């Protein structure tokens, strides 16, 4: 485990989580664009929990766990980061988890699209009264990543 973070549904906390995740991605030698993708996904997913699962109510519990995935298998040869979010809000209805068509110009409905475009795996589930979201991003094997191994 890289770390576990407990926060409360409050938009002011998003900025702290972004800083933590940004550094976690840096420590794991993700490239800048990949790091931004991970930060963006965690931020949007937490914002959705606050707005939808908790209906904007403040002070309710959200958990985030980050794991470093070891390398080895095919796609994930270089390893990656797994981020698990859990909340105790109203059950997410899978049917509502839809991104709107992007050709309409209207506010809203972009968060899930950002997440799905940015991460390699995105899975919603519900267990023991909790909404769970699992997101994974794999490291793309790069000369930099290889070079900094010996660090």
């Amino acid at each position, binding site marked *: 485990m890289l770390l576990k973070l407990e926060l409360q549904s409050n*938009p*002011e906390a*998003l*900025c702290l989580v*972004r800083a933590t995740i940004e550094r976690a991605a840096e420590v794991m030698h993700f490239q800048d*664009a990949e790091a*931004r993708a991970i*930060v*963006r996904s965690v*931020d*949007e997913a937490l*914002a959705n929990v*606050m*707005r939808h699962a908790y209906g904007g109510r403040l002070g309710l519990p959200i958990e985030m766990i980050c794991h470093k995935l070891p390398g080895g298998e095919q796609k994930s040869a270089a390893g990656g980061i797994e981020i698990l979010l859990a909340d105790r809000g109203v059950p997410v209805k899978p049917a509502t988890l839809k991104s709107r068509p*992007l*050709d309409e*110009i*209207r*506010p*809203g409905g*972009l*968060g899930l*699209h*950002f997440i799905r*475009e*940015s991460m390699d795996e995105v899975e919603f589930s519900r267990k023991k009264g909790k909404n769970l979201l699992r997101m994974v991003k794999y490291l793309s094997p790069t000369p930099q990543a290889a070079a900094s191994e010996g660090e």
Partner: protein
Amino acid sequence: MQIAARPATGGTILDITGDIDLAHSPAMRKALLQEIREKKTPKVFLNLEKVRYIDSSGIASLVEGLKASRDQGSRLILYGLSKTVREVMELSRLQKIFEIHDSEAQALAS
């Protein structure tokens, strides 16, 4: 996030500093709509040079601003987009919808 307004040729520049996320996009939305709807500023320039992060709620507020300015027959002009901001615009497929310039000089001359 902080917003400061300053006068510019033909309108007003809003300098935005910090993160436009769920915590702060409502304040940006308010400032933007006030400038467009109440003050009826003909050209509103949004200086995004010092924006470190923008999320989908920030983008949603920009879209609202754009719609309001179209309703008013005025213009909303963005400039100084960092790589992060540009990336989010592209993910939203909105980079062609907004008037976007690289620098303040180019935005003011537009």
